[in-house]
């Protein structure tokens, strides 16, 4: 991948700050491993947590997109009542802070569901994924509505003139045209969601943030604070920045504004 100048610069800054922290290696008290050695020691554990972040982001996105697609289609329903209520639900989940929704699901959903004798356990991770899926649902719903409304009304009218039913028009004519328009904002939302996954550490899921804090607590060395948090920031950056860059390219190609 070709790096843009500003990204190259950021990389340079990161490497420089890393190089500046190296003299500390020599300064480390005897009997204590250097900063680099400590980072390497904790990397496998924190990376395992990071994979959980990514897993949570993928599952929440899948669930949120599915629910959001239905909600979005309900928003453009010819039935005024359905459309209005879908609009209200969408606005509610779009305007509520992610962290608050996360608390809501994690604290208020029981830890298991009993269905006719059997019980399905609901671990915190599953509830947290649902909690992240709710704001995704609201945003996807808005993306779907926006995309459908951006299709010129002539398309609807010509479909009607060709005797397509409403459902046929939607599925065979309107939605295929929308997919292209929906992709960039949808990818953008995925990046935002991925960057929101550390929030689940607050409600007790053991992901990268939890692991980093646990590692820092175990080491109890203040010189590790910047490198450890820095490492986590870099990982997220390396995952999210390419998505953002790709989104921008698609936006340019499709000529849509986010």
């Amino acid at each position, binding site marked *: 991948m070709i790096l*843009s*100048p*500003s*990204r190259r*610069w*950021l990389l340079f*800054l990161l490497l420089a700050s890393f190089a500046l922290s190296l003299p500390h290696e020599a300064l480390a008290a005897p009997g204590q491993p250097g900063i680099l050695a400590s980072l390497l020691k904790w990397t496998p554990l924190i990376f395992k947590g990071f994979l959980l972040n990514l897993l949570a982001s993928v599952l929440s996105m899948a669930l949120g997109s599915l629910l959001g697609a239905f909600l979005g289609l309900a928003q453009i329903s010819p039935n005024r009542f359905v459309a209005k209520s879908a609009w209200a639900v969408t*606005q*509610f989940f779009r*305007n*509520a*802070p*992610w*962290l*608050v*929704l996360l*608390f*809501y699901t994690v*604290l*208020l959903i029981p830890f298991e569901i009993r269905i006719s004798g059997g019980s399905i356990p609901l671990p915190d991770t599953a509830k947290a994924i649902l909690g992240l899926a709710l704001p995704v649902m609201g945003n996807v719903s808005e993306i779907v509505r926006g995309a459908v409304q951006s299709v010129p009304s002539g398309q609807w009218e010509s479909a009607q003139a060709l005797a397509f039913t409403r459902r046929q028009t939607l599925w065979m004519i309107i939605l295929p045209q929308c997919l292209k328009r929906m992709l960039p904002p949808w990818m953008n939302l995925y*990046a935002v969601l*991925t*960057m*929101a*996954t*550390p*929030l689940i*550490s*607050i409600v007790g899921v053991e992901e990268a*943030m939890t692991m980093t*804090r646990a590692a*820092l607590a175990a080491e109890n060395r*203040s010189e590790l*604070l*910047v490198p*450890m*948090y*820095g490492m*986590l*920031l870099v990982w*997220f*950056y390396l995952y*999210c*920045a390419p998505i*953002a860059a790709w989104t921008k390219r698609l936006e340019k190609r499709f000529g849509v504004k986010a």
Partner: protein
Amino acid sequence: METVWEWFRWLDKAHGIDLSVFYDAGDRHRFLMGFLTTILLSMTCLVSSLAIGFIGAWAQQSRFRPARLAVGAFIQFFRNTPPLVQLYFFYFAIGGMLPKLADASGMASPMFGSFFWAAVSLSLFGGAFNIEIFRAGIEAVPRATIEAAESLGFSKGQIFRLVAFPLALRFSLRALNNNMVNLVKTTSLAYAIGVPELLYVSAQIWSDQLNTREMMTLLLFSYVGLVGAMVWGMHRLERALRMPGYGQ
């Protein structure tokens, strides 16, 4: 007013819906202070993120290449890393590195409190988005307008301050509104470093009163109300500042 509070006490007694923030004066005070802290934090972040957006957009126009690249790197970093990790980075890593000061009782205390770091971190986060938004707005300013200002003898700085930016602000108002709303929602992250804002005080109240369900619902509606009021206000501002001849 007392009758209204008493009604909530009755609601608790009769139906077990425990909204202690209404009938209990202590909880009411806590909740109100939390609400005010959220508003104060939001306002601080809004103003400073706009300032960062202004300065960044200005620096991006500069002929000095390192300044442009630095702004680019700043945007890249803050847009593509999780705000919560940024917050922890500032509060624990940067805040931890700063020297401690002796407070009135002689105890060593950090130089800046959690509110300060939440404000710094969230302002930078919001500011990074504002720079991009302003840049898009500046690009939308017609070239002819800039040329007209040049021919009238305005300097580059004057053109930015007096011509391009005011127009860009109006072009970018819609995107700006979205970002501002997002920033207000993001202030709830300050909970994680113990800023006594709305979420934090609510968590305190529900662990004291064991009324999680009621408090969570009230909290959710408080935020939706706060954001809703803001969306409405911004929408009016957008309409008032709308540029004739653009958009619908």
